[in-house]
């Protein structure tokens, strides 16, 4: 018995230790660079891949390659040359020169005579008065030619500052970020591309003789430009040269610059943040204090933040930075500018080592041998600028991009051979089809190894850095494929498509490597003194944690209380929005009208119904799902907004289709606050290489399907997304596109059995049953990235995701209008989308004040300003799609996309509501479900479910007193139509309601 026990114990220990050891050493299967790869090998590999990529019409020639090709030919110390506008709009005395206004697509032309041929930087004098959140880009040509791709996307930087440094506090005592203000006036910039891939400005090559430079405004913002200057490239001093040049003057001082006290920055997205640790200053355990620059926003190459500081005594100062770098085992790069210039070579791309997670650390700027760098500063005011850089990463990123492009092209080539489903029983000898297969795989290997070799020096863990782990994984996956390359089609999943494929690993590492996150707490300019403490000691931080914990009990952040004196507004949005709204209300609305407004967060919209039941309801509710106003209205809990005489006039600023769910028997109970759109989103690279046209009608969608599916790709319809019960926006779009409707006019019966409606529903069902569209898609975003669904209907959420979180396909996708259907000679692009609603509650005693508030809040000016404020303060993920069309037109979306979206929004329509609408919604879902999964015909399914819907409507109509028990009409019910709404708007505006609004 005892020996048995012992055996078991030994066995258990053995198993556990094996598991632990294998866990710890499992990742040891990594590549350690050993200088085995020669430059020529890398070039051959890169060019080999390049050849195939070019055949697929992806033709990249980047500045990184341009520099590599030309670096030996750069001559320094040329003469700088000024160039003047050929044509201008007049003279500006402020800069003493002529200027020209460039609105969208305008061109400024400069003719210049060059004495010394060579590479120059271009310095441009410009002014931007219009406030915009979009990047302002221009394209530059020399003699109508571009030298590299980046010349068509050159950035004109805008400089911003906080409106005030006296931060306001919100109702809970937490500090709120200040609004952002554009710094006006003429500026001079050297030209960089919009992703700032180089530390130094872009170089342009000029031949000897007369040259023409053209600068085209490719943005929608107007810019004023004046003279340009060609600047000779210069060599940086080394630190040694710099130091020898300066007087050796010792000082004893400490200048402490708080990171939040910046005087200017070139991106509104870089923002202050309240970090909850006593190691940073200022700090308060109970209330949030803005104390650092947020590393999650200060991470993109090119973002710069500038500080001013006063030196009391001239002399040599050291620099130190109190910061966090939470990039995984990897340094981040910042260039340090003193008074606008990088003083010596070593301050170009200074690498700040990783800190241990969120541990605040002081980095004294020093060389490899720990000798500090001294900067000589005269007495007086100076500036210091920290600019995020990624130049050293660029060649690696370029290589990765080349591989991603190639894998995409290669996969397509493989699919063209294998067809949709790979025959697994066949003995593949794939080199017979694509003989270069092993070469390609070898090239991948060489290139991935090169990237690891190039980047390992930025991590204290070398090649095992977590940031490089995706590359390591790609490499080991690659080895698996390479060992069996003749059967490559069987490994297609490992090459591209889906999670864990090489393409995904590479795509992910693109983002990881290029990001440069840095939380900045303070900059110290000092010498011969002790620096402030790096971190709060254990007792201080524990005490702070305890205090924070206990103060959380008394926090009133999410309590909803009713205040008699003010207009109470409950908003179903996060506190970020609510704070921003409250600030705007206090500043603009209350000062103008004297009406006090209190805005609170309503975390759960159902609270509204409960509060209505308990007579504790607010006056106004915002951010509601589009079905809620109706549910409250029919229960006599919503205020009839159309009783305000100017309702329809005000409403005419919005898309008519969005009002449909808010109308009950010709009375309107809400106003659309935000909206959503549906557009076609497609992969340009794939469509180009397959030679497809982008489908404009559903007919055309069906036409491309067979060929698309032949390559194992497909089209995405939103019905495949989300959960298994499908909503109106997924099921009923085609009903409207085919000219049908959901209800008969009196609302007592559903009209899904009319000829047109059945046609629409049949079409939707056929997409799955006849044309094999996917029935369920976990994530369109991922499938789109890996090209398994290279085309589909995208809503705002997916559009944002793909725009902001898929760098490897940036520039390779586009949007197009929603596919149309032509009924009776009329083409329409109707789509169903639910925005959010704003309403006034029925029991309010401040109806007029509430209406004033709504009109102010949803007006063009407020919405434009709010959209701007929220996005400029919190970044591009906070895009606000206002329901107010005029405000929407001002929103900071890329111009080209915006045009398509605005066109599409005109076709917005929402499902009309009746008391039994949930039954129709779920029945439409079940009709689809029955037909697609059980194979019954659409007509039969519709007949079956129609009975159920009609019964429920009848029951509800009796409950709400529209008809009597025996079906006699007591009160008439009327289903709203777009035509009726447009008519109302037209009358209200005196016939001025603009169809194209």
């Amino acid at each position, binding site marked *: 018995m005892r020996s048995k026990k012992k055996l*078991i114990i030994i066995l258990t220990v053995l198993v556990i230790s094996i598991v632990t050891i294998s866990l710890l050493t499992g990742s040891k299967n990594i590549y350690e660079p050993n200088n085995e790869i020669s430059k020529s090998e890398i070039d051959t590999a890169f060019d080999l891949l390049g050849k195939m990529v070019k055949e697929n019409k992806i033709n990249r020639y980047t500045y990184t390659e341009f520099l590599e090709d030309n670096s030996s030919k750069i001559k320094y110390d040329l003469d700088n040359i000024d160039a003047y506008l050929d044509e201008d709009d007049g003279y500006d005395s402020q800069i003493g020169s002529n200027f020209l206004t460039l609105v969208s697509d305008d061109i400024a032309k400069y003719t210049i005579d060059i004495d010394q041929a060579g590479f120059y930087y271009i310095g441009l004098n410009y002014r931007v008065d219009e406030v915009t959140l979009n990047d302002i880009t221009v394209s530059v040509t020399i003699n109508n030619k571009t030298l590299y791709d980046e010349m068509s996307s050159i950035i004109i930087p805008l400089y911003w500052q906080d409106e005030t440094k006296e931060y306001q506090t919100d109702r809970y005592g937490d500090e709120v970020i200040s609004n952002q203000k554009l710094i006006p006036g003429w500026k001079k910039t050297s030209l960089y591309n919009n992703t700032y891939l180089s530390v130094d400005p872009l170089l342009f090559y000029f031949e000897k003789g007369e040259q023409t430079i053209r600068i085209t405004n490719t943005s929608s913002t107007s810019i004023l430009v004046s003279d340009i200057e060609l600047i000779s490239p210069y060599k940086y001093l080394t630190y040694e040269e710099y130091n020898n040049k300066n007087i050796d003057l010792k000082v004893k001082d400490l200048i402490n610059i708080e990171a939040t006290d910046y005087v200017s920055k070139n991106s509104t997205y870089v923002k202050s943040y309240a970090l909850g640790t006593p190691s940073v200053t200022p700090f308060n355990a109970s209330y949030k204090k803005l104390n650092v620059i947020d590393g999650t926003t200060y991470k993109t190459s090119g973002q710069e933040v500038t500080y001013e500081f006063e030196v009391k005594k001239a002399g040599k100062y050291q620099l130190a930075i109190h910061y966090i770098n939470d990039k995984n085992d990897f340094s981040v790069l910042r260039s340090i500018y003193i008074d606008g210039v990088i003083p010596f070579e070593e301050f170009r791309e200074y690498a700040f080592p990783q800190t241990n997670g969120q541990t605040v650390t002081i980095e004294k700027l020093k060389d490899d041998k720990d000798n500090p760098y001294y900067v000589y500063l005269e007495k007086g005011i100076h500036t210091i600028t920290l600019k995020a850089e990624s130049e050293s990463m660029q060649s690696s990123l370029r290589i990765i991009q080349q591989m991603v492009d190639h894998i995409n092209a290669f996969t397509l080539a493989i699919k063209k051979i294998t067809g949709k489903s790979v025959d697994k029983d066949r003995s593949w000898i794939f080199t017979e089809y694509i003989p270069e297969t092993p070469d390609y795989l070898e090239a991948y290997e060489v290139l991935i190894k090169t990237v690891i070799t190039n980047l390992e020096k930025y991590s204290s863990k070398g090649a095992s850095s977590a940031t490089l782990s995706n590359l390591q994984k790609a490499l080991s996956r690659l080895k698996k494929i390479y060992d069996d390359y003749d059967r490559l089609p069987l490994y297609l999943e490992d090459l591209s498509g889906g999670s864990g494929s090489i393409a995904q690993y590479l795509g992910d590492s693109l983002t990881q490597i290029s990001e440069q996150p840095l939380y900045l707490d303070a900059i110290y300019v000092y010498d011969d003194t002790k620096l402030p403490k790096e971190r709060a000691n254990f007792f201080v931080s524990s005490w702070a944690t305890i205090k924070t914990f206990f103060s959380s009990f008394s926090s009133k952040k999410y309590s909803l209380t009713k205040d008699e004196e003010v207009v109470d507004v409950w908003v179903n949005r996060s506190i970020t929005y609510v704070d921003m709204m409250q600030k705007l209300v206090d500043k603009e609305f209350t000062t103008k009208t004297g009406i006090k407004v209190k805005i609170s967060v309503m975390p759960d919209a159902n609270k509204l119904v409960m509060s*209505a039941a308990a007579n504790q309801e607010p006056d106004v509710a915002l951010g509601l799902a589009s079905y809620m106003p109706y549910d409250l209205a029919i*229960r006599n809990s919503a205020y009839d907004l159309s009783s305000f005489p100017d309702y329809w006039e005000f409403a005419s600023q919005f898309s008519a289709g969005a009002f449909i769910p808010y109308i009950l028997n010709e009375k309107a109970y809400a106003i659309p606050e935000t909206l959503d759109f549906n557009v076609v989103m497609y992969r340009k690279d794939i469509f180009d290489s397959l030679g497809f046209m982008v489908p404009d009608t559903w007919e055309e969608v069906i036409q491309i399907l067979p060929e698309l599916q032949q390559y194992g790709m497909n089209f995405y319809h939103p019905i495949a997304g989300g*959960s*298994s019960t499908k909503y109106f926006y997924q099921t009923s779009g085609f009903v409207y596109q085919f000219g049908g409707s959901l209800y008969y006019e009196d609302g007592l019966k559903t009209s899904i059995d009319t000829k047109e409606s059945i046609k629409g529903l049949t079409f939707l069902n056929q997409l799955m049953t006849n044309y094999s569209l996917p029935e*369920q898609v976990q994530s369109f975003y991922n499938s789109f990235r890996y090209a398994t669904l290279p085309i589909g209907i995208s809503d705002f959420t997916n559009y944002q995701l793909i725009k902001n979180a898929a760098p490897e396909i940036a520039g390779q996708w586009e949007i197009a209008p929603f596919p149309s259907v032509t009924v009776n000679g009329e083409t329409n692009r109707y789509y169903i989308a639910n925005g959010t609603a704003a309403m006034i509650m029925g029991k309010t005693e401040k109806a007029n004040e509430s209406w004033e508030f709504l009109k102010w809040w949803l007006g063009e000016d407020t919405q434009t300003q709010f959209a701007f404020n929220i996005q400029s303060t919190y970044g591009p993920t906070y895009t606000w799609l206002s329901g107010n069309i005029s405000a929407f037109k001002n929103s900071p979306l890329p111009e080209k996309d915006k045009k398509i979206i605005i066109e599409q929004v005109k076709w917005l329509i929402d499902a009309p509501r009746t008391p039994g609408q949930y039954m129709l919604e779920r029945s439409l*879902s079940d009709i689809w*479900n029955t037909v697609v999964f059980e194979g019954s015909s659409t007509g039969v399914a519709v007949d079956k479910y129609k009975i159920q819907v009609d019964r429920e409507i009848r029951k509800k109509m009796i409950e709400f007193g529209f008809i009597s028990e025996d079906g006699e009409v007591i009160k008439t019910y009327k289903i709203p139509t777009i035509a009726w709404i447009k008519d109302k708007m037209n009358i209200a505006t005196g016939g001025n309601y603009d169809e194209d609004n």
Partner: protein
Amino acid sequence: MTKTIKKSKTRFEKRDMLATFVMLLPYVLLFSIFIAIPVALAIYLSMTSFNMVETPKFNGLVNFINIFTQDTVFLRYVLPKTLMYSIIVGPGGYILSFLLAWMLAQIQKGPRTIIALALYMPSMVGAVFISVIWRTLFSGDESGYINSLLMGWDIIERPIQFLQSPDHLMTIVIIVSLWSSMGVGFLAMLAGILNGNEELYEAAYVEGINNKFQEVRYVTIPMMKPQMLFGAVMALVSTFSNGYIGVSLSGTNPTPQYAAQFLTNHIDDYGFLRYEMGYAAALSVVLLLMILVFSKIAYKLFAEKD
């Protein structure tokens, strides 16, 4: 007579009564606030028409009549599905719990603890796990493990829509429920078996039983009736009130074509989607009665005879 008794109460007795009162107070208070009053309110609401916003209107037994005469969804889907689910998962999970507990009791302490923990885990983390693990396993595109495997083995051409298709949803709900049914009842049974009197077994062997089956039949089960009762009641209550699995697997209430629509989902549907609180209250009273009846049956089967 009463007078004499009152008079004869000594101070000691009065103090005794006070003590009883104080001792009972917390229980009575908590019971009435959290159980008695809500149940009474639910019963009252079940006899009203209440749309959550306006004042409830009394309408007698109309709701109950409607449940059994008008509500086709209830009669066609909810009731049969709930019963079927409870009958399979209730006793099924219960028998499974007992079997596993008994088997575990046969092995050494170390591994037993680990395995018992592993079996108990799903019932603790249920809701989260369901969406994380099971939805990924059964996902209806190539990213679902099961579909990916089946397609990899060339068994199917197109992914099976496990979570959308009504043919599969109910089966999956039952599998998942069984997986997560080793709850407190299972632990109680394990404890019951482990605390069993060794001497009883020895005596039984002397009396002439000669295999494990007889051991279970004549010793283990009679010995642990109290734990079995507890386990049975727990299993019943949890299966009846366990509607969330179908909803969290399919992602919505109602489930597609009411494929896995249980009474609790039906209550949610009426209460929070259709705002018919009165009707929902009536349904919950029905649920209460059903649980009551089935618990009574469990008592009949397992309670001590006295």
